[in-house]
């Protein structure tokens, strides 16, 4: 038996897969003081006697600790003159129009950012040696102030780790109990702020994550010993590895959802899809090609929705670890509708969240939200959702939309509700465009995979706006992230700086560099109990024209007869031409080598998941209700059906109700479910 559990801001989703492939699911409120106990109770309930082979966990513990300033007290040692870069963050800000913006507090207060007399130059040579006595004095001071961890990040240490290693030894001698992270080990990549920020985030999370995992393992030990953690890159690692590299866990939950979509796409043989995850406050999109989600080499923590910041950032703390390239915007079911100074209708970024929540939940919310609009439009069940556990008050939603949106704009309440959904869709479109057109992909060649509680409700309309003609609604869309946990492989990523023009590159330097990374990877995976022959490697290189500010990351797969330099030159020129339309006869620099090591874990078989076990959606007796589809299609008496009622294609309008989500099929779409419960929506005429 394997157990996946995803702890989100509001709910904890639990999926238990027994050895016969049956699924048991549960959704419980996330209460931080009960982490572990609630999982244990759910596992107990699902299968009393069977041992659990592995727990796979997605969690927001790491991102919450950074965002809420609850990471461990941490010191930073850096080169003289540079301690304020961690706070200034390149002097950027995320929104050029907002004079009320406030920067997140620094990860380390200035008093604990200490400067060391030393200097390494831009070619890696040491200009000014380290003064051990000064280092010791600064370390003693930090220890006296009560730090639990020290990050060391020196200028140009990505090229020469010697000073950092010496400082690491000095700290170990003085204070062996302290957590120490060196930038040359955590992330040896050029750009001092990003590297320091990454190192600090990792150091400051280690004490927190250790305590958290100790507690969790204590609760789960009686069921099984193996606890695995989802990383931002969509791979899993052991709890022991997570204790060393907690910075890899930041985007744990969202990555699991994307991974589920990727596995689903592989299984259904969909070469090009966009995943679309819509929750209460944000919506997230990711591009998936041939079953592989697009990745980015880093991101920001704590910046909120990334849309206005994706050019230069500045909203959050930089974190350079491989992430699935998920674009997030501030629009979700809880987004509040309002009218701005110019008289335009807006939705979000303010959200009613789970508390008080939308007006229709009847828990004190008074401002109309996107969810209220969906209820008024007849898309969501007007009396109860979530397997009848959450009561819905349509009249209250209607009254709020009428008073706060319709009347001020001189619109009919149905039109106003439709407007709210359209405006929220416009924001979500920006996320979908960001992962497609902005990355040079034509969305019309892609299918959409919506999930999250609200995703399947908006999917068809969003798809049509982008020219997408097919939407695949996977099984268990409301628990998709927890499901994704049980579908992941082990994965670790490694980087090594080269920073040489191709003309200066020794022919064997690349092979030697990759060999060193491979040795490191095999040692790490062996510690996780994975045999060397089970490991698959992928090699990549970061290249740029000498003058450029950003690199392109390309696969490194030369034929044996190729000269390495010639291969790198040709593949970079070709990639640049494809990305930007031209190439230049210019100096090309090899910036870094990247190695990805993966090994298969026991995984769920996706075939038949939808129909298996208790999670099988019940067949609804057909009913109907009035639903409004905008001025184009108007008001329709709309059949309400279950997924299993769609084994023959039916035309919209339809509302498909499931325990954990609602799917809206507009009048110009059709819906069809196969025997496994794979529901597909098609735009009519396609």
């Amino acid at each position: 038996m394997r157990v996946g559990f995803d702890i989100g801001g509001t709910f904890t989703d639990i999926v238990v897969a027994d050895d016969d492939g049956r699924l048991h699911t549960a959704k419980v409120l996330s209460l931080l003081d009960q982490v572990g106990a609630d999982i244990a109770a759910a596992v107990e309930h699902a299968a009393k006697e069977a041992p659990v082979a592995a727990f796979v966990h997605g969690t927001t513990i790491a991102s919450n600790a950074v965002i809420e300033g609850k990471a461990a007290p941490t010191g930073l040692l850096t080169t003289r003159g540079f301690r304020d870069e961690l706070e200034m963050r390149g002097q950027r800000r995320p929104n050029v129009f907002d004079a009320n913006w406030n920067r997140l507090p620094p990860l380390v207060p200035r008093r604990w950012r200490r400067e060391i007399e030393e200097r390494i130059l831009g070619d890696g040579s040491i200009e000014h040696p380290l003064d051990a006595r000064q280092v010791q004095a600064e370390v003693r001071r930090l220890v006296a102030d009560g730090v639990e961890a020290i990050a060391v990040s020196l200028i140009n240490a990505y090229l020469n780790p010697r000073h950092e290693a010496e400082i690491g030894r000095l700290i170990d001698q003085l204070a062996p109990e302290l957590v120490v992270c060196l930038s040359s080990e955590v992330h040896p990549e050029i750009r001092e702020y990003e590297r320091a920020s990454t190192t600090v985030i990792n150091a400051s999370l280690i004490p927190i994550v250790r305590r958290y995992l100790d507690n969790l393992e204590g609760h789960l030990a009686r069921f099984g010993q193996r606890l695995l953690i989802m990383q931002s890159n969509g791979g899993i690692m052991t709890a022991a590895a997570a204790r060393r590299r907690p910075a890899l866990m930041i985007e744990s939950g969202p990555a699991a959802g994307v991974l589920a979509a990727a596995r689903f796409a592989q299984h259904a043989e969909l070469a090009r899809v966009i995943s679309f995850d819509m929750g209460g406050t944000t919506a997230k999109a990711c591009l998936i090609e041939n079953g592989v989600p697009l990745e980015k080499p880093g991101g920001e923590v704590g910046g909120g929705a990334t849309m206005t910041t994706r050019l230069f950032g500045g909203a959050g703390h930089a974190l350079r670890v491989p992430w699935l390239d998920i674009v997030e915007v501030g629009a979700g079911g809880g987004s509040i509708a309002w009218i701005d100074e110019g008289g335009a209708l807006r939705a979000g970024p303010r959200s009613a969240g789970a508390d008080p929540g939308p007006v229709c939940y009847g828990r004190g919310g008074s401002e109309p939200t996107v969810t209220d609009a969906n209820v008024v439009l007849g898309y969501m069940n007007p009396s109860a959702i979530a397997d009848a556990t959450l009561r819905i008050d349509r009249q209250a939603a209607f009254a709020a939309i009428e008073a706060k949106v319709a009347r001020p704009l001189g619109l009919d309440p149905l039109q106003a509700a439709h407007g709210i959904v359209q405006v929220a869709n416009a924001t979500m479109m920006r996320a979908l465009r960001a992962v497609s057109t902005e990355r040079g992909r034509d969305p019309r060649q892609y299918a959409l995979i919506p999930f999250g509680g609200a995703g399947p409700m908006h999917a068809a309309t969003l798809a049509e706006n982008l020219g997408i003609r097919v939407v695949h609604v996977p099984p268990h869309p409301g628990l998709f992230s927890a499901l994704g946990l049980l579908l992941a492989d082990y994965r670790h990523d490694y980087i090594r700086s080269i920073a040489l023009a191709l003309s200066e590159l020794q022919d064997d330097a690349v092979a030697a560099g990759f060999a060193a990374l491979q040795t490191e990877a095999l040692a790490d995976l062996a510690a996780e109990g994975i045999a060397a022959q089970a490991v698959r490697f992928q090699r990549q290189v970061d290249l740029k024209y000498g003058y450029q500010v950003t690199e392109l990351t390309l696969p490194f797969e030369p034929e044996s007869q190729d000269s390495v330099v010639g291969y790198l030159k040709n593949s970079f020129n070709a990639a640049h031409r494809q990305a930007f339309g031209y190439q230049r006869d210019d100096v090309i620099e090899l910036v870094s080598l990247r190695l990805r090591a993966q090994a298969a874990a026991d995984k769920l078989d996706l075939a038949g998941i939808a129909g298996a076990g208790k999670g099988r959606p019940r067949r609804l007796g057909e009913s109907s209700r009035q639903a409004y589809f905008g001025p184009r299609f108007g008001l329709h008496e709309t059949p309400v059906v279950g997924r299993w009622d769609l084994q023959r294609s039916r035309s919209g309008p339809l509302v498909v109700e499931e325990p954990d989500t609602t799917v809206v099929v507009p009048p110009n779409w059709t819906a069809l479910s196969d025997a496994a419960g794979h529901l597909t929506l098609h735009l009519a005429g396609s």
Partner: protein
Amino acid sequence: MHGPAFDPILVEVVKNELAAITEEMAIAIWKTGRSAMVKTGDFATALCDGKGRLIGQGYAAPFQLAFLMRAVECVVEKFGEDFQPGDVVLSNDPYAGMTHMPDVAVITPAFWQGKRVAFSVAYSHHTDIGGRFPGGFSSQCTEAFEEGLRLPIVKLYDAGKCNEALLQTVLANVRMGEEWLGDVEAKIAGCRRGDREVMALLDKYGPATFAATCDYLIDYSEKAVRRALAEVPHGTYVHEDLFEEDGFGSAGVALPLKVTLVADGHTLAFDFAGTAPQAAGAINLPISMTTATVLSAVKGLVDPDVLTNAGFTRPIRIAVPEGSLLNPRYPAAVGGRAPLFFRVMDLLSRVLAKALPERVPIPGEGGDVLHFTGRRQDGSEFAFLDIFFGGWGGRPNQDGIDGVAPMAFGSYGTIPAEVLEREYPIVVEGFGYVPDSGGPGKHRGSQAIFKQWRFRGPGRAMVRTNRLSRPNAGLAGGEAGALSRNVLTTAKGTEDLPRKAHMHLHVEPGDRLYHVVSGSGGHGDPLAREPHRVLTDVLDEKLSLEAAAAQYGVVIDASRLVVDEDATAALRASRRRA
């Protein structure tokens, strides 16, 4: 199709789509641009409708949008209907919407089914534009002819065909021609991206709805501005300042700047009568930039998402005496207009603060620049540019922000030291806060920011510095931030450099330049600042014990590092009596 009625939903949807397009344009430019200026973010993108009216707000600061708006009008005035698919128009004319010659705009018309429906616009600051001084933004020129090559709205491509004669002429006149051309190519790639995406919008909405939506977007901005202006108390507000720079760093210069603001509930009228006549040096602000600065200041009063466009400007009146510092006559030199731009931004904030004291912050300081050119050991040319910022001044309800691009700027950032040290013969020896330098106030202004460079090769350097002799003042009882400084260390010793806005130097290997961008003013009475905030600044070594007492009247026990409540109360009481 849609009639002329305002559609509150469509306007929001299309606004979002246009914003996404202009962001995509910006990303294409940033990733492919060649020069340090593009890397640091000194560029902007926008979209205009077929009539040349701004409709898409992308990656741009309000002032950038405001002058681009005028620059595209000038393009349409010049060419009328004479646009073909494949045209690429260049302009850097400070007397036709642009603001100094190193800023070169690329404008491309977009066609849908043979009809002109839009213009894509991108400008960036080039490393050079020819002329007497490398960089083209020295204040020491006295006529436009010295400042570089003026491109008076010309087609680089005509119906897809490159004007080779023009290109060769440009490349024969600018330094670092390869880099110049690389940046232009990046902007063309960005505009082509914009053209394609606009055509896709037309496919979706059709020309009638698209045109109607452009009208809505313009009306919508007007409504938003009028609603905001209705909240400005009626009255006449005046603010005056003195500008200490004539372009040559002459001693004792004090040029009057004056603005009179009249608010009547419907319009805001800004009159700059009383401002000094234009200067001989290149510090003048061309009218396009003065207008853009005013619109940028008004933008601060309106919802951040409201677009600066033709509708936005309708309720705003701007009068600037011809031949003045803020509306010079051709061929006055304007290349070094940035310091005056910062000062006028500050002037406008302070006059608006008189009308709306609860809302308007001190915008803050920055935009200092080191420009360094020469040859590497291998003989190759380089042009290094480092731009960096002070921070935000105190705000009515909260502190300013230390070390961030000022409010009036776009989303600029600084280039990492490690990147600079790989590409240029330079070592960065530090970049951070100067203690005791933030303007004291209930809400403290940003600290001063220092940066120190060591030159590893010989070359020509120019450092642009604001606030060398007149500090950034406080507001509402707050006090000024510390002054800017330049200190040069050579084999001969260490000296404070003269207080010139644009300082030209020959540097030798091993020379060091220590530069400080001034602190920003504080907001509100420093004696009203909560003592625990003062203590936090002391613990963080942003404030010394002495400055805590002198600036804030807060006494901190030096051994226990806690606030001495009694001594603080006594000190503050005696200060208030004094």
